[in-house]
């Protein structure tokens, strides 16, 4: 359970997030947490709630709001993923998601930089004197307050630099995730936050392929101190292509779990009206954990599962 002081720090972080987006004319939205149909993602086990699911992400309804005429929107909400428990995972966690119309993943990387500096400005006074890390420690600030550029590393480059086997080899023998966890993540975001970008096209079910290189998707992950903090991409807006990818995911889900998943028809209908945009999911509890200088996410939420 957080101490009263830590509750104040967490509230300051949430306030800073809200003031950042409202100062940039983002509309705060709150979409349904209980969803009758979810976007098919074979690597996420949803938590059932009667004949509905608890959201693993607010993505489908936020994109439908964009199709409905919204431009820039954000949301802070609880998300649920079954059997994700560990030092850096909770079955229920707090997600920040935001979407930008007419933007691509590069704009989201700029947002990430601006957001973290805003959080630093808004919370550093409260963190001063607590002995806790706060945000500043992770931003690689120079003495004059300026900062160093954050590295952008493509997945291909990361494999060349740190992996014992090639990217193609890892994809063929299905060890991509193991290599990322064991050899690449520990190298990312040690001094300044880092972006790992341009994932293999097969690993981004909802992202747009890169114009000049369709073998990769315009997708990135933000890493701080070896920890994945956010996942963003240029959104796929081609309904037919999205349906083909969902078909594959539905097949994988059936094959891996035996669960029969449903095609999200309302989402696909609205996708036809969606103009180019980009969206990102950002783990608030993980960021707060780093700001507290802790290494267990259970120490960064108001009540941990064992305290309920």
């Amino acid at each position, binding site marked *: 359970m957080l101490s009263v002081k830590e509750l104040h720090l967490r509230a300051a972080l949430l306030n800073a997030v809200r003031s950042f987006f409202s100062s940039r004319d983002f509309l705060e939205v709150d979409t349904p947490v209980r969803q009758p149909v979810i976007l098919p993602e074979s690597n996420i086990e949803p938590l059932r709630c009667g004949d509905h699911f608890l959201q693993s992400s607010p993505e489908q309804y936020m994109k439908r709001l964009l199709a409905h005429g919204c431009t820039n929107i954000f949301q802070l909400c609880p998300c649920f993923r079954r059997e*994700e428990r*560990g030092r850096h995972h909770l079955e229920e966690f707090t997600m920040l998601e935001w979407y930008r119309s007419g933007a691509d993943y590069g704009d989201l990387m700029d947002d990430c930089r601006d957001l973290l500096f805003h959080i630093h400005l808004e919370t550093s006074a409260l963190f001063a004197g607590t002995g806790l890390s706060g945000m500043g420690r992770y931003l690689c600030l120079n003495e004059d307050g300026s900062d160093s550029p954050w590295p952008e590393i493509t997945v291909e480059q990361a494999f060349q630099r740190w992996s014992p086997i090639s990217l193609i080899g890892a994809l063929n023998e299905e060890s991509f*995730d*193991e290599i990322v966890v064991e050899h690449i993540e520990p190298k990312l975001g040690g001094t300044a936050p880092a972006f790992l970008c341009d994932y293999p096209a097969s690993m981004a079910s909802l992202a747009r392929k890169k114009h000049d290189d369709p073998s990769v998707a315009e997708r990135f*992950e933000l890493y701080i101190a070896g920890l994945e903090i956010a996942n963003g991409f240029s959104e796929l807006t081609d309904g037919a292509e999205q349906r083909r990818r969902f078909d594959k995911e539905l097949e994988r889900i059936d094959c891996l779990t035996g669960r029969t998943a449903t095609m999200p028809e309302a989402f696909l209908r609205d996708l036809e009206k969606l103009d180019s945009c980009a969206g990102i999911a950002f783990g608030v509890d993980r960021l707060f954990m780093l700001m507290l200088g802790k290494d267990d996410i259970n120490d960064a939420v108001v009540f941990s599962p064992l305290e309920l």
Partner: protein
Amino acid sequence: MPGPSATGIPADTTIHGESMLNASDLRKGLKIQIDGDPYIITDFEFSKPGKGQSLYRCKLRNMINGNQFSQTYRSNDKFEKAALEERKMQYLYNQGDEYHFMDNESYDQIFITAEHLGENVNFMVDNMDIDVLFFDNKPIDVSLPIFVNLEVIKADPWVKGDTSGTDTKPVTVQTGYELQVPPFVEEGDKVQVDTRTGQYVTRVKE
């Protein structure tokens, strides 16, 4: 690092029904059976790279030969719980390298070799209650009480005014084990020893 494979049982097979474990049951301290041997998970980490699959990264130690290895499991892997049983036993006596125990309930007697008991023999005295861990009806480990009282059978006398400057001296206890104790401990005294560290705790008045 290469290591023994998981049970190798296909995911959809339900051998032993409920005793099969899923990857989501893995945690530090869990004992599972791999290739016929019991293993304890000594380190556990759940990982899931963005949009990727769940990875269950384990360090395991073979509970019989002590060999260690690392292995990453995935959601669909299945495991068999190690069939371990702890029995309350009494240590009776040793005959050379054979240490004889009796089951407190069935009165069955077994023996375990000195080699297998390792340093435990330093702290075992006749008629001591000891928990013995069995795997597949074979004893594989013993849990001693944390503190045991042992009689000092050999000690140099304490010379008052000893100026050697040392504040401990070596003594030998009834099991043949040698340890450092304060100078006032004498032959025939009983000392309490911490079996986890093998170190002197206090002198015992009986």
